[in-house]
């Protein structure tokens, strides 16, 4: 790229460009993978979020609505809007779907009870009938604070208490929470195998870079059509595919806490427009000058944020890794 051309580069425009071709490429990928696996269609867990809505719409366009099966997989702490929006998109695309609540699986493993006990250890006043909870990380961009998780107690929409989690509690809590995504994947494979379908994942490139998925949970699918599309590109695809405006406007969330916790509060720690531009700039090794111009951030802040992103990438290498094999004849 010429220097002058490069300096006038608009990263968001680059990300939003060529969306029709990207959609076509993704459709071809879905067709080839499903055919390659010798499967007759796909099962998708439909969360009411933008990623699963886009994956569902692409699969329907390519494979036909009769070869796509949607699963709505709520649990006790899910936002009611997740089920409503997930059902709506299945209906609007004419896809067969089924609601399978995963709460019985979670109860059989005492997930809710163990989580309640853990929260009570930190907040003796916790009463699940009157309090909601969420797990958050401090904002990175404005405060530059470390990746230290805080649990919040919310009553009538107001945060009434907040405390830093000890390492042991954090690890236990993540283990309990991740059973939710892993249970959802168990249900998806149960249906996929019955139908001789593949399971279509919905992880995007931003999530992949940050390790923002559960290993062998939502990350344990047969194909990942969106995993090379940044979140911003998924939104553009959503617009192109006429995804319901309510889904597009909804703040993204893993939706595993009783108080709806956005991805920005727990994973990104900065607006997605900034995060995706920084990830794109790293991928394409863009000069600082272009990043400064596009993000409005100072050179120092860009470098600090990129170091932060690199630390997350390193820390989540294990999440992305497939099991290493010891090849005995090499």
């Amino acid at each position, binding site marked *: 790229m010429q220097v002058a051309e490069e300096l006038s580069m608009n990263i968001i425009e680059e990300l939003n460009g060529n969306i029709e071709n990207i959609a076509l490429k993704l459709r071809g990928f879905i067709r080839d993978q499903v055919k390659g696996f010798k499967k007759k269609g796909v099962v998708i867990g439909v969360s009411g979020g933008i990623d699963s809505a886009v994956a569902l719409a692409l699969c329907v366009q390519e494979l036909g609505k009769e070869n796509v099966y949607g699963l709505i997989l709520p649990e006790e702490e899910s936002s009611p809007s997740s089920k409503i929006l997930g059902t709506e998109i299945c209906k609007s695309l004419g896809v067969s779907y089924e609601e399978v609540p995963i709460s019985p699986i979670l109860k059989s493993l005492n997930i809710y009870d163990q989580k309640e006990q853990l929260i009570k250890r930190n907040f003796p006043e916790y009463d699940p009938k009157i309090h909601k909870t969420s797990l958050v990380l*401090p904002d990175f961009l404005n*405060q*530059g*604070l*470390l*990746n*230290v*998780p*805080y649990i919040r107690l919310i009553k009538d929409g107001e945060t009434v208490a907040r405390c*830093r*989690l*000890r*390492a*042991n509690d*954090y*690890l236990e809590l993540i283990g309990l929470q991740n059973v939710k995504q892993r249970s959802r994947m168990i249900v998806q494979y149960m249906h996929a195998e019955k139908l001789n379908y593949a399971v279509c994942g919905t992880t995007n490139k931003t999530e992949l870079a940050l390790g923002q998925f559960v290993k062998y949970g939502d990350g344990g699918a047969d194909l990942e059509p969106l995993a090379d599309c940044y979140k911003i590109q998924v939104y553009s695809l959503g617009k192109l595919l006429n995804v319901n405006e309510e889904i597009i406007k909804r703040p993204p969330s893993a939706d595993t806490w009783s108080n709806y916790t956005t991805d920005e509060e727990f994973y990104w720690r900065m607006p997605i427009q900034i995060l995706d531009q920084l990830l794109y700039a790293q991928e394409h090794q863009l000069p600082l000058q272009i990043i400064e111009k596009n993000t409005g951030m100072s050179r120092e802040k860009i470098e600090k944020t990129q170091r932060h992103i690199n*630390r997350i990438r*390193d*820390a989540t290498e294990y999440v992305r890794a497939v099991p290493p094999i010891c090849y005995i004849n090499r």
Partner: protein
Amino acid sequence: MEQIKNDIVNYLKANSFMDNNSSLEDDDSLTQNGIIDSIGLLELMDYICEKYSIEIPEDMLTPENFDSLQGITNMITKLAK
């Protein structure tokens, strides 16, 4: 101050990915040298709070205060006063 540094180094040798035979300079980065990761950081915070009977305020949870032996020692000295 030297005692705090020794405590932290001993803790890291026993509980982190730091090699028992390697040395740690005051300004070496704990994360960039692969000595602690994000979970190791939480464990180190728990150790510091317990060992020195201090609470670390949220605004002090910065890379400057936790990424090097010197930063950690300065922070503990400040809070333990």
